[in-house]
């Protein structure tokens, strides 16, 4: 009698453990896929603040950025990119890419004070980034061209707020005179 109860208990226990481990494995697989996608394919981020006012709202927009273009070098001037701050590796910023290596970039040095412009040639392996809002943006005009290795993703689609959902147009070359 005790043996029968013992065997029934074993059976029930085994099936519970089997189901639990099956579900746990499914969850683990899901997180693996999520991690690989986030690291190598596509990630989402929240942008806020005044430095990209022409493209994003002040209060914060959510968008998708894909990583494959960066890996294969398929970024060019006019793209909006996600990159790490050279001065603070834990922070990520959103800027507009204006020049690749060996491009010549002309920029307004200090738009609040004067119209003085400077021209710089972007060195090998580096890129020049600027925020849309040149009056209130910390970018290559302050810390110089950044190494390409700091680029994290290329923004291709806005997902929040819902009424502004959609792909972002290439902003083209910026002209401070306009």
């Amino acid at each position: 009698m005790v043996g029968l109860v013992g065997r029934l208990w074993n059976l029930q226990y085994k099936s519970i453990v089997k189901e639990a481990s099956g579900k746990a494995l499914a969850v683990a697989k899901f997180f693996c896929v999520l991690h690989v996608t986030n690291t190598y394919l596509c990630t989402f981020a929240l942008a806020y603040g005044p430095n990209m006012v022409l493209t994003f709202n002040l209060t914060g927009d959510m968008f998708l950025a894909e990583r494959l273009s960066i890996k294969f070098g398929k970024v060019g001037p006019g793209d909006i990119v996600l990159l790490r701050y050279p001065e603070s590796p834990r922070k990520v910023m959103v800027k507009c890419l204006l020049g690749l290596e060996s491009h010549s970039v002309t920029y307004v040095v200090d738009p609040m004070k004067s119209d003085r412009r400077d021209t710089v040639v972007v060195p090998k392996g580096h890129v020049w980034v600027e925020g849309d809002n040149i009056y209130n943006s910390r970018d290559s005009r302050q810390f110089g061209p950044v190494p390409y290795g700091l680029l994290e993703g290329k923004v291709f689609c806005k997902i929040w707020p819902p009424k502004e959902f959609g792909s972002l147009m290439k902003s083209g070359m910026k002209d401070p005179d306009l």
Partner: protein
Amino acid sequence: MSPTFNPRARNFTDDYVLVEKFCLKKYEFSHGDVVVFCSPSNHKEKHIKRIIALPGDWIGTTHNSHDDVLKVPKGHCWVEGDNSASSMDSRSFGPIPLGLVKGRVTHVVWPPQRIGLVERVFPQERVSSFK
């Protein structure tokens, strides 16, 4: 990075090392850590060098045969190879942003006779960290 890695010029196999990525959560490194980073002049190349100076440190270098003292800017680090005679490191391309670091080397895992921890050593006399 000879003799820490690949101590003999024409070895039968290259050294293989274990690189940990948990350090990328906080980007907190110590003097003498050996790290893997993307080259600032070519993002497809990765280099392995030792961190000699951290943000805010003053490092003594020799530039064009005269001695110079540089302050490592915020968010950057100064990396040098152990083999100072032939090494492409911060002495040629300057301090690198910490964002380029992709991992920290902790152990040598191959060949078997060289398995072991990678020690943290650095030239203390060339670095001063006034905070």
